[in-house]
């Protein structure tokens, strides 16, 4: 049954149309990028971009290159490090803000004032503060996911159906039991949503931080990563590798989100029954 469904989906009209559009996109890109060779006239914008065939060739060459995979590894390490820190600090903080009115009143306005400052604006301050560059990247990465996670946890916990709490209370549940068995599972879906969004932001921040700290003024030394890979390709003039880097980050980001979605699905089995 499941296989049949998958097959149906694979050969459906929608899949065909999607693939058609992507193929057309790639062809336009290829033709546009080679426009100078083909027509003797350089198309605006596209004419300056490396063609997909060259990108693919360049990628083929990189597959066997350990330093390319080292970049993957470094970025993943930073993303998951920063993300894990954001979860570990953000979830309890969000829950505590939701449960304790006094703490909420004190911390939420401050939180709301700091939130509009884009995480990347923290980069220089972070570099000054943290002893190593690695730590400063980690801090900015953490910040990226942190706000989203806290806001989602807080929103989820505050919108719990009051009747759930009252029902539990009238059955003699203790405060701790209500927290553990009602508040926590009721907030879980928003935690999952918050982390998925947070994961996307984390990738954005890591790439940027790697580019700024690696390629910017601070003199490199942050030790690679896919963002640095792109930047050094740009500085080194190998434009195909820029696109390879972009696609690699896209793939990496997609898989991290997918991983999170699957994990979230396992944690919230009751949502699937809807």
């Amino acid at each position, binding site marked *: 049954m499941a296989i049949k469904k998958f097959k149906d989906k694979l050969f459906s009209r929608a899949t065909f149309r999607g693939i058609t559009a992507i193929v057309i996109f790639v062809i336009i890109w290829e033709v546009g990028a080679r426009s100078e060779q083909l027509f003797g006239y350089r198309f605006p914008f596209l004419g300056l971009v490396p063609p997909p065939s060259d990108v693919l060739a360049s990628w083929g060459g990189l597959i066997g290159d350990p330093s390319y995979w080292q970049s993957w590894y470094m970025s993943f390490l930073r993303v998951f490090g920063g993300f894990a820190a954001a979860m570990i600090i953000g979830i309890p903080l969000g829950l505590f803000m939701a449960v304790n009115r006094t703490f909420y009143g004190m911390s939420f306005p401050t939180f709301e004032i700091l939130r509009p400052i884009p995480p990347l604006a923290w980069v220089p301050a972070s570099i000054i503060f943290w002893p190593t560059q690695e730590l400063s990247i980690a801090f900015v990465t953490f910040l990226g996911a942190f706000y989203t996670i806290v806001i989602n946890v807080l929103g989820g916990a505050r919108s719990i159906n009051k*009747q759930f709490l*009252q029902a539990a209370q*009238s059955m003699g549940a203790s405060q701790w039991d209500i927290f553990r068995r009602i508040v926590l*599972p009721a907030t879980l879906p928003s935690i999952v949503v918050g982390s998925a969004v947070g994961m996307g932001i984390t990738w954005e921040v890591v790439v940027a931080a790697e580019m700024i700290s690696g390629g910017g003024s601070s003199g490199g030394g942050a030790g690679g990563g896919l963002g640095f890979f792109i930047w050094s390709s740009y500085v080194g003039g190998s434009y195909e590798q820029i696109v390879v880097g972009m696609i690699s980050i896209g793939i990496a980001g997609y898989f991290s989100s997918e991983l999170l979605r699957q994990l979230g699905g396992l944690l919230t089995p*009751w949502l699937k*029954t809807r």
Partner: protein
Amino acid sequence: MSTQVKEQSAFSGRDVREQSASEIVATGICKTYGAGPFAKDVVRDCSFTIESNKLTVMIGPSGCGKSTLIQLIAGFETPDQGTITMDGRPITGPGMDRLVLFQESALFPWMTTYDNIMYGPRARGEDTKESAELAEFLLNKVGLEAFRDKYPQQLSGGMQRRAELARAMINKPEVMILDEPFRGLDNMSKELMWEYYAGLYEEDRNTNFFVTTDIDEAIFLADRLLIMTNLPTSTRAVIEIDIPRPRRIEDVVNSSRANEIKKEVMTLLHEEAMKSFSGGSKAAADFLDAYSKRAG
């Protein structure tokens, strides 16, 4: 009336005589929400008694303070004035002795049917063999044994309500409070639920307090019927419903006694609508509209 019953109640496994006197008395309660220009009297000088071992049904126009009264009796909120006592002791907060079944199903969506039923005992640290057995027994009782590992979302409306009844009964409450529990069910499932619930009640005749806006539901279920006024709410009339138990839908529907009561209740509610029209309630405006057309 049930004090003579000697044998144990089949489903709660509890001696019926134990709970002989759980009476709730509300005296002169007032409750206002909001402040300043938004202050709104919801309950004003309201007194009534929920007699022990009887099924008391409260009926009133929708949007009147019935849900507020439930919050007060359950102890989730406190009245601004007046007292509510249970067996003479004032009610100060939520307690195990009074259990509330809510308007929309409040089954925890993240727990299976069985876990939902077991919630009460587990929350109190009574995750014992006896509780588990009782849970199984109740699952059977409400006909959900095949659905014990399903989540609430996978159950039909009627099944959800039955699961919720079981979740309440396992805690052996002295008083069961039901806030329009069958609202939102389609009429056919609703009638089946009436018979079902009446059957459960007739088995051990606990003190039950049932709030509704449905006249037929009220008359079919009630031993005593409290008719409430529109906002601000107080008790308008009390009618003893003397239709013999056990009741069946067909019997009650066809009885002339039920029809008489229905006419009486409709008249009272109509008057309420007329009175509160100047209060500006939209629901009341609807009433007035229709009733005045009927009269003219």
